């Protein structure tokens, strides 16, 4: 067994990483909860957001945390338009088609990024990236602590939007009972697009929180999105709370698996858990419906 001196930092770091996973999963689960589709383009959109955050700093000198203020509305608009003008019309209302369209979008986005920026891995060198806070039991990187805090704020804001605003109420109405919502005058196409936009906006924030301590290449999103799938399935498809808690949980699991089994096998641990949860409890731990 490992001493608490190694275990505690591993768990704390797992929680910090897990919060970002949770944010990525939050976007996915929000879209699933309302549109009842799995957005296979989620990973590619995260990659695109990370490239945007990277070049916002490299070309415009924007600090990633400032860039988030611009990229979030930008990606909201992108997500809104994708759903409104591409996915919605192309799918002809069939779930099977939506699967294919989002898969096709993922392939397009990922490979256009590959074409434009080649397979190189890029990193930002920020002077505060290596600052740490000393908790006594562990040293934690400042950007990741800030990331953790930001995720909590985003979760809270999203919760407020969903419970207090008219749009939020419309979103929840459509998620619960689509036809009923439509009959009472809610523009379902608009609500779908807004939800897709919110899910995509979560990715822009996640990207800005990741970029100070992480690297970016055209395939980076895949690593995150498979973890996000696991979280969403674990937390229950469509459950916002499930996504955040599931994210923290998976972050700790990954960190401990990496500690005991090594990097590549730690990755397998997540997949195996994913498959097991899908097979044994497809509704997840917090999910209400299949």
């Amino acid at each position, binding site marked *: 067994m490992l001493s608490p001196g190694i275990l505690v930092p591993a768990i704390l770091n797992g929680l910090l990483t897990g919060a970002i996973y949770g944010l990525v999963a939050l976007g996915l689960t929000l879209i699933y909860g309302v549109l009842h*589709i*799995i957005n*296979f383009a989620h990973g590619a959109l995260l990659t695109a957001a990370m490239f945007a955050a990277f070049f916002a700093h490299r070309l415009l000198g924007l600090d990633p945390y400032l860039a988030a203020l611009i990229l979030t509305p930008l990606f909201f608009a992108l997500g809104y338009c994708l759903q409104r003008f*591409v996915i919605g*019309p*192309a*799918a*002809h209302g069939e*779930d*099977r*088609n939506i*699967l*294919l*369209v989002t*898969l*096709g*979008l*993922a*392939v*397009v986005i*990922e*490979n*256009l*990024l*590959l*074409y434009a920026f*080649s*397979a190189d891995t890029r990193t930002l060198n920020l002077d505060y990236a290596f600052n740490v806070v000393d908790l006594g039991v562990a040293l934690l990187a400042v950007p990741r602590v800030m990331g953790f805090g930001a995720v909590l704020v985003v979760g809270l804001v999203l919760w407020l939007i969903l419970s207090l605003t008219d749009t939020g109420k419309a979103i929840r109405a459509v998620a619960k009972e689509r036809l009923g919502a439509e009959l009472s005058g809610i523009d379902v196409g608009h609500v779908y697009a807004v939800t897709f936009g919110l899910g995509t906006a979560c990715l822009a924030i996640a990207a800005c929180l990741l970029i100070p301590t992480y690297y970016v290449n*055209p395939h980076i999103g895949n690593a995150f999105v*498979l973890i996000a*799938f696991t979280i969403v*399935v674990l937390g229950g498809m469509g459950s916002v709370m499930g996504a955040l808690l599931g994210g923290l949980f998976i972050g700790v699991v990954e960190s401990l698996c990496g500690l005991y089994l090594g990097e*590549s*096998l730690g*990755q*397998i641990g997540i*997949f*195996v858990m*994913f*498959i097991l949860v*899908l*097979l*044994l409890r*497809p509704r997840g731990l917090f999910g209400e419906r299949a």
Partner: protein
Amino acid sequence: MRAPSLLHIALVTAALATVPFVTGSNVVLNFLAVALVIALVGQGWNVLGGYGGQYSFGHAAFFGTGAYVSAILQVRYGLNAWLAFALGIGGGALVGAAIGALTFRSGLKGSYFALVTLAFAEVLRILASVAPITGAGVGILVTLDLRPQAFQFQSRAPFYWIILALVAISLVIVRLIEQSRFGAWLVAVRENEDAAQAVGVDTTRVKLAAMTISAAIAAAGGGFYVQYFLFIDSGIAYGPWISIEALLASIVGGIGTVFGPLLGALVVKILGELTKLVTGDAPGLDLAIYGSMLVLIVAFAPHGIAGVLADLRSRFARWASSVVERAHG
């Protein structure tokens, strides 16, 4: 569209079989051989996805298993290449049956099915990239032994005829399924699973059988790939490229039709080559075009090229009959 007869299949196969007599160009034969591999794996996808409505995003799991089983048995255990190829198909079918049993028993369908097949392919890819028996990150080189009994040939033409024969067999299999009671059950599952179950179709068993056949066909593609290139690694075997090209061929050509995957594979590959001609060998651009084709086909021609052709034919027939009517009137 009217179902094509066995005669149609024979005619198409015979026409394609003449290609090596027309051109000795290795470039053309290489191109067609790879396109036919995609057609074969696409036909496998079509059995489950096109007729059964279960969209797999992880057919690499079967393609890769066919490839690895065949390569490992030859290289590590000295088995005859043909026997190894046959066992590779069996191995792929087994993996298909196992994944199918797990997923269909738990009632996973739609997006969940796509997700879980994707995850299985990824697990296999990671395992193959670390396990010593698959050559880990290095991959497996099949020993060069250019004799027909070792499933290796001096020229490209015999390879081409073999993959063509495999594709022809898959066309016949799908044609037989289409005309059978099993095929009717499978389509019933696609159209309305609950209704199919209500009238007494054992939907889980039907889907399981379809997945096993589908996986066996995809594994044959993998086994052939190994003989043709004499090399396999985890990225080629279990990477997402083959899962995407298989479903793309099927959807572009015409989902749930006998000739769809063959037609789709040829069109997709020709477009891919044309892109390379225009842009040079830029990585990513051909795949980006495949992705946009997928979106465009789903948006504007949900029944693929076969659907468009059928539509044109019926329009032409209507136009012709109206002309005849007018001439008589």
